[in-house]
Structures are given as structure tokens and as C-alpha cells.
């Protein structure tokens, strides 16, 4: 098969580009440690969240020095708890599930983004910095009221967080 010299060059450059793109993702995973939403959490019965240790009481709790866990339930058409209040300059692991249909959980304008699937639990870890208020949107169509489904993520100062008693509700 005859391949033009320029075409061979183009082919070589294309393969370099592809390998470089795969390389960036690999680097992101093993270098800075960007973790994907995966199968790290066990499944949950979406009809019996009330009886589940993780989701019977959607909340934010402290699990270590500057480390927090948040348990969030998405439903038609909102998020619980709302607002989700977390302290500044901390590490927060969010666990998100759905009580009914598939929803999205997106902290608008950030890469904190996950699907909320009934029966499964998405786990994402974020680092907060200065106190700010973020909007949370459902970014997967979930029914006729989809557009009213929103939440808040409030990053507050350490002292303000402690004055709240550490819990968001």
C-alpha cells in the first residue's frame, strides 16, 4: 500500500497527539491524584434511605482534623441538606445518592460534578479554600420540575462553622 510521505508524517503526529492526551489523563490520576467517581461505595436501597447509616440523616460531619464528610440526597426536585455548609480550607468528601430518578450534582462553575443514581453512591473529594457561596444545580433531566431543582454549598469560616455546632441542619 502506497502512503504519501506527508501522510506518514501526519499519521505519526496524530499518534503522538493521542498518546499525549492519554498521558495527560494518566498523569492526572497518578500525579496530582485526581480520583474518578467509581465503585468505592457500596450500594444502597433507594426506597429505604431512612434506614441507611449514611443517608438516614443527610448531613455534614467532621471525621478528622480539617476533614469532613457530607451525605447528600437528591430527589425530585431538590437536594438535602440545603444549604450544605462546610468550613473553609478543609477537605470535604461528598457522598451523593438519589431517592428516586437519576439526577446530577454539580457545584456550578467548578469541577465538583457527579451523577446521582438511585441505588448507587457517588463519592467525590474537594478542597475548599476561602469562604464563598456556590450554587448547586441538577444537571441531568429528572422530570417536569427539573429546572427548579437547585441547592447551595456555603463555604464558611472555621469559626462560623463551629458556632453552628458543626452540623448543617
Amino acid at each position: 500500500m502506497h502512503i504519501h510521505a506527508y501522510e506518514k508524517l501526519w499519521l505519526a503526529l496524530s499518534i503522538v497527539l493521542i498518546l499525549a492526551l492519554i498521558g495527560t489523563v494518566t498523569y492526572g490520576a497518578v500525579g496530582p491524584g485526581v480520583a474518578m467517581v467509581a465503585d468505592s461505595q457500596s450500594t444502597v436501597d433507594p426506597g429505604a434511605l431512612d434506614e441507611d447509616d449514611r443517608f438516614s440523616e443527610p448531613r455534614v460531619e467532621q471525621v478528622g482534623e480539617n476533614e469532613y464528610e457530607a451525605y447528600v440526597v437528591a430527589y425530585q426536585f431538590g437536594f438535602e441538606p440545603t444549604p450544605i455548609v462546610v468550613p473553609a480550607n478543609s477537605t470535604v468528601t461528598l457522598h451523593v445518592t438519589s431517592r428516586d430518578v437519576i439526577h446530577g450534582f454539580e457545584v456550578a462553575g467548578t469541577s465538583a460534578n457527579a451523577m446521582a443514581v438511585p441505588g448507587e453512591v457517588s463519592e467525590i473529594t474537594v478542597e475548599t479554600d476561602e469562604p464563598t457561596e456556590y450554587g448547586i444545580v441538577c444537571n441531568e433531566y429528572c422530570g417536569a420540575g427539573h429546572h427548579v431543582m437547585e441547592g447551595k454549598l456555603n463555604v464558611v469560616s472555621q469559626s462560623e462553622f463551629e458556632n453552628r455546632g458543626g452540623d448543617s441542619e
Partner: protein
Amino acid sequence: MSTAIESEPTFVDKFPDEARVVRAAFMSSFFALLLGAIFGIIQTLHRTDVARIIPSTDYYTVLTAHGVFMVISFTIFFLVGLFTWALTRSLDRPLLNIKITWTWYGLMAAGMTLTGISILAGFVDSIDMSADVLYTFYAPLQAHPLFYAGLTVFIVGTWIAGADWFRTFLAWRREHPDERIPLQTFMVLTTMTMWYIASSAVAASVLLFLLPWSLGFIDQVNPTLTRTLFWFFGHPVVYFWLMPAYMLWYTVLPKIAGGRLFSDPLARVVFVLFVLLSTPVGIHHQYLDPGIAEGFKFISMTNTMFLLLPSLLTAFTVVASVEYGARKNGGTGLLGWLTNLPWRKPEFTGMMLAGLMFAAGGFSGMVNAGMNINYLIHNTLWVPGHFHLTVGTAVALTMMAGTYWIWPQISNKPIFSSQIGLFQVVLWFIGMALMSNAMHAQGLLGVPRRTAEPEYSGFDYPTMFGGFEELNIQIAIGGTLLFVSTVLFLGNLVLTMGNPTVSGLAEPLPSPVSGAEDAPQVLDNLRLWVGIALTLVVLAYALPIAAIINRGGLLGPGVGTYPVWAAPLFDALTNAATPLLGAITDASGALVEVIR
């Protein structure tokens, strides 16, 4: 070369029965384009809050209709028309049995009509039917059974179409045992091979789970499983839309440019790569899904990146073929040859602009495929921004431009106005440049896709690349230009149909510079490619699907049923919603308590 050009027969002269099928398929395609465009403009103006003529709860009916009519009906009806033309033309023999051909056309038309009815009934409150599940129909949102049944009939129609083409090819093979498969036929057969593999999963999802569930035979389904089966089909289907455009770029565009295809062997390599790689990648739509291990996502990501290869090769070959034509017609210089091209022909300019936008779509696609930066844009308006460049322009604009060239071949009627055609394709390009660019930008602000009212009460979007409002205006203007462009295209075509038939319109396709004789025989060994493709699919999907079933069960972990065809309840809920949302939480799905 023929000495009697004037007496050269067109496609319709040689194959009048097949030409009738091609015209019927194109008419169905363009009818869907008209409906899709109407819903498109309603949706654009609603979303951007320029004009909200429907209640926001009906927005999702509009969105379902726009998606299904555009990407299932418009694209696939065009594909079956184009492939019927291409196979018959390149084999130079009629289809085996035209009754079978009309049968599959009839099935596809009937199936799409049923699905269309189930969607459009969502606008009429007195009919207890709707299918506001969008193009992806993720369970546990549930459509009326007619929606799933219609899709099944439509897909069965496409399967019979593929069988019709394969049987005709085998008949040709018996008559020509030693010849290479003609290039266009090769493209048809490889694309259909991919389609059989891909659509088997969505057929399984619909027939085993969704249809029985919507009929009440089973109580629940596993949402992750049906979603995974959808994306098993949902990514290769984008190449099913794209392959007709590739066929036109490879075999028709060089002719219009005044030249010939650069390389037949590499065109075959590209189509083989699509057979191999387009299916084992679907999990890249599920990077953010829980319940699927990171390793499976990584495999899918790697395959996806390698899928760039056939498109990068295509970019080279198509540009080289066009340059060949320009230089043959006196073009010189590094870029000076660009002026020796038929820019006044809408079929040429349309396809070139489509190719240019496809390059931009390719780059935003690389971002989507990047497993980590995908988190920034997943399910934001970036994603529709991306696919309006690919399916919405590379495919749709090439199909419209191709129509300007092919319609005279299948009807003996010259196009009514090339000027309107040229204006129309350029208008599409401008409209899409505005709309798609602003959609990408809004996506980066975090504006979600698929929502009737992207403005929220609790927060404002940050400002970059212009604010949210300003980008909305760009989207609305762009969408309006696209609607006008579609109307001009359809109007031009209707006026073309009123033209008298003439003779002498034939435009035979030239043979490639480097012909099939240069291509290794192994490329034509379809059995081999099917074998490798299936192996890759098993490697990419067997373990994830087993794991999903193992985690959630074949019929799901106790997930409920949420028919979207009980709209009034949701309306009541929405009206009551915002102030009461906090109070709903303990009610565990009892909507009645909410209203109290």
C-alpha cells in the same frame, strides 16, 4: 472517458425504482428536519428567556421531540437513502427485491410515526400519553410503551435495510468473484456492521427491560444497567450519523472540487477503524457514574482517544483530495490554490464549512474524552455546544450540501437556486458559530444542559467570556439564523421539485488517485474485522456489565417507577415546589402530603 457526455445517464435514468426509494427516504428525513427545526427554535428562545410561549414543564416535550426527530429520524432516514444510492451506484446493479426495500422503508416510517405520536401527545393534556424522557430515555423515568415500541420497529427496519444491502452485495459478488469491493459499497457494509453490533445493546435494553417495564410486566429496572446499554449504542450511533457525511467527503467532495480522491486504501482503513473502535468506548459518557470502576473508565478513555485517529486521517485525505482538484485546475502556491475552488457551489462550500466546524468539534470532543477535565463540563451546556458542531453541523450541513449535488442525480431536476443554497449554507455556519461558541462558554460557567430555565434563584453565574445574559443573546441569535437557514433549505428543495425534468445532469464519480488495487486484500475481509470488533466489545463491556448486574441486580436495587406521562401531578408539585422543598424530605415520595 466517455465521448458522449450529454447522453450519460443519471442515477434515476439507470435505476428508477431505487431512485424512488432514495427520494422517499430523503423526504422523510427532511420532514423530520422541519419538525426538529421548529422545536429547536422554540427551545432556543425559551431557554434563553427571549420568548417563552410554552409552560416550562412542556419544554421537555419540545426537547425530546427536537432530539429524537433530529438525531434518529433526520439523520438515519438520510443515511438509508444515501446508502441505497451509493450501494446501487457503486455495484452498478439494482437491489435484489425492491419490495423488501419498500418493506424496510415502511417499517422505519411506521416506527418513527408511533414514537413521534407518543412524544407529541405530551402537548395534549386530554391524551393520557407522553414520552418526556428525552433522547436518552434514562430509567427510572418512564415513557409511554408506544415510544419504546416505535423505536423498536424503526430499528428493525434499519436491520432489514442492512440485510437488503448485504444480500445485494453477495449477489454482485457471485457475478464478480475477483473484483475488489467498490469503495462506496465497502463504506455501506462496514457502517452497517458497526450498526448491528451497536444497536443490539439498545434493542436488548428496550426489549428485555424498558418495554416490559412500561407495560407493567416487571416492576423495576436497574438504572445503571439500562443506562450502560444505552451508551453501548449511544456512542457508535454518532458514527452512524457521521459515516454518511464521511462517504460524501470521500467520494463526492473531491469530484465537486474538480479532482479525485487521494487514496482509496486509506479510506478503507478509516472505515475499518470505525468498525473496530466506535463501540468499546461508550463508558466515556459515564465517567461521572457511580458503580463503575475507574479501570473500566480508563479503558474506555484510551479507546476513545484512538478513535481520533480515523478522523485525523480523514482530515488529511479530504484536504489533500480537494487540493489535488484545485492544483489540477491551475491552483498554485502554498495556499493560493484555495482560490481555484468552486466556492460558489453550495454543495462545495457547505461541505467545506461542515468539515471546518468538525475540526472545532473534534477539539471540544478531546476535552469531553479527557477523563479528568470532563468533570468541569459534564452535563453542562458545553456538551450540546460540542455535538451541534459534530452532528449538528459536520453531519447536518454536509447532508444539506450533499442534497444540492445528489438531488438532480436522483430526480433529473436541477436545483432551483444555487444562490439561495450558497446563502443558506453560509448562514448555517454563521448561526452555528454564534450558538455553539456561546454554548461552550456557558458550559464553562457551569450552566447545565437540558433545562427549561437555566437561571436560578439562589446564585448567579460567574462572568467570563461575557456574562450569562450576553451569551444567551448569542445563543438566541444563532438559533434563529439556523432556523432561517433550515427554512431556506427546505423551501429551495420544494421549489426544485417543481422544476421540469431535464437531461444531461449526470455527474459520474471519478476513480481515486491511488485506487483499490493499492489496498491490501485483508482490508476487504469483513469477517476478520467483525471478529476483532466483537472481541474488543467483549473486553470493554463484559466485566463492567457483569459488575453492574452483580451490584444492583438484573432488575435494579429497589428503584421505583416514575412515569412522565402523569404530567398534572408534576405541574402541581412544581407550582408548590420552591418554598416547600425543604418540607418534602421526610415524605418519601408521597406527593399528596406535599400539597398539604
